[in-house]
């Protein structure tokens, strides 16, 4: 038996079995429950697949599946509104993260080589602390009697506290803060690979820095831009903790809507259907991005 065959036969099997049982199968169950009806029972959905009834059981099971939950999502303005809000906030937050990410990645890629590992370490370290704690840290800063307002008022810049906590602005700050490393790394790697002589050539030919940024740098790092945006946008759409701690009850994002539906209303079939829709919404930009990456190649 060669090494390759050892890896093929023995190595793939345990992870395949584990992921099949705990990833693929649960996903099929979600799909199936999203097509069921809510009932007040344990478990709170119907139909249950009754295998003891033989083929007849499977027949009743199939005939009772319906698209009711999906039509609820489309009919309920609050529901599809939550998807629209999530997409809007995620898109806006991705754009802001891109701007802040460039602020960080451009000087990082220009820094002397011996300083770079230190800069990377400095970037990674806050990212390794708990997500929950990082969102929590912003509450103390942003709340009306918080540190930001205290600072601004003692400087005499404002006379009344700014209301930032529990607004969309706070959600955006939270997302930019929490997802920044996901943006900076792809940007930095593409910037580092870039040939600096291209910029010199552009400058020699009379391009202003701004012009050469858009005409030379941006096309060169475009794959990195797309990768970074995908890495921020995808988790931001389904984000739960940040909107819950920093946002208000008025900005309902899909993660929280799903959470409420599941834990408060105990409508598991509807929550399952919302999860499937969320996945579809998240996957579409990924597929679009893949296409983009293929055409630029």
């Amino acid at each position, binding site marked *: 038996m*060669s090494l390759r065959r050892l890896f093929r036969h023995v190595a793939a099997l*345990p992870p395949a079995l584990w992921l099949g049982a705990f990833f693929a199968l649960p996903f099929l169950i*979600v799909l199936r429950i999203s097509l069921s009806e809510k009932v007040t029972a344990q478990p709170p959905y119907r139909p249950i697949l009754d295998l003891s009834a033989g083929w007849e059981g499977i027949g009743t099971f199939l005939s009772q599946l319906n698209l009711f939950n999906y039509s609820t999502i489309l009919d309920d303005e609050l529901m599809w509104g939550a998807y629209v809000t999530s997409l809007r906030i995620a898109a806006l937050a991705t754009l802001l993260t891109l701007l802040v990410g460039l*602020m960080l990645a451009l*000087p990082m890629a220009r820094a002397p080589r011996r300083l770079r590992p230190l800069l990377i370490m400095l970037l990674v*370290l806050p990212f390794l602390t708990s997500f929950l*704690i990082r969102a*929590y840290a912003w509450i103390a800063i942003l709340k009306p009697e*918080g540190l930001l307002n205290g600072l601004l008022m003692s400087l005499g810049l404002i006379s009344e506290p700014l209301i930032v906590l529990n607004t969309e602005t706070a959600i955006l700050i939270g997302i930019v803060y929490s997802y920044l490393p996901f943006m900076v790394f792809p940007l930095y790697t593409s910037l580092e690979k870039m040939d600096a002589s291209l910029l010199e050539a552009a400058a020699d030919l009379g391009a202003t820095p701004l012009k050469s940024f858009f005409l030379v740098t941006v096309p060169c790092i475009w794959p990195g831009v797309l990768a970074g945006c995908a890495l921020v946008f995808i988790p931001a759409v389904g984000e739960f903790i940040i909107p819950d701690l920093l946002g208000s009850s008025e900005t309902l994002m899909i993660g929280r809507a799903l959470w409420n539906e599941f834990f408060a209303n105990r409508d598991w079939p509807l929550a399952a259907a919302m*999860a499937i829709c969320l996945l579809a919404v998240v996957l579409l930009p990924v597929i679009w991005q893949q296409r983009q990456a293929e055409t630029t190649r």
Partner: protein
Amino acid sequence: MSGRLSRFDLVRLTLALAFLYVPILLLVLYSFNASRLVTVWAGFSTQWYGSLLRNQALLDSAWMSLKVGIASATIATVLGTLAALALARSGRFRGRAVFAGMVYAPLVMPEIITGLSLLLFFVAIGMDRGFWTVTIAHTTFTIGFVAVIVQSRLAGFDRSLEEAAMDLGAPPLQTFLLVTLPLIAPAVGAGWVLAFTLSLDDLVIASFTSGPGSTTLPMRIYSQVRLGVTPEINAASTLMILVVVIIVLAGSLLAKFGGRNTVAPA
């Protein structure tokens, strides 16, 4: 690109790093505040660390998080390393695309969906929720992270060493244990650390998959945060940050010194 930093670059770097660090530093600073108010500084005190030690519910959940983290990171490291070996070394095999999809999909899957699907699965098979369901859930979503790290190490690895061992008559398993495994050990270690921190950090998936007796630390903190900001949470957060910093430093030291000895004769 390389060169010198302009003054503008330094300003940008400083601002961005301040944005990253100021919130955390403030959090740590106010954990030592004598006042109950998080916003008014009333002098240095370690009283919140004391009250933390008397908060039995918090200590229990921290212990639970630690157990879940160690168990899930260990299983995920074994399975993730195997997955990386299969993906990097088996060439093409039937079902490779499906297998790769299953390994990487949990990386981008919104955690709320992972949590929901696992809970529905545990209910469907009638498994009681507790330590093991959270551990299984955390293992499942961290396997992919381990696989990515180990795979990148396998990609830049000198295969002639394995071939040499085989040519000298070592059977495949022995080659794997004595040549391949020591060479990828730093990546395996890094994978374990990442899986552990991800598990320690997770709130959403644990909320779905835990039972009455298996509240994890993030869940406990989350329920207290919803009631308001308290210095006690700041103290707990500071300790968690400290733990992560220690793990990261230990990990990078291990990678630095462990990495050099990997090809030492066995």
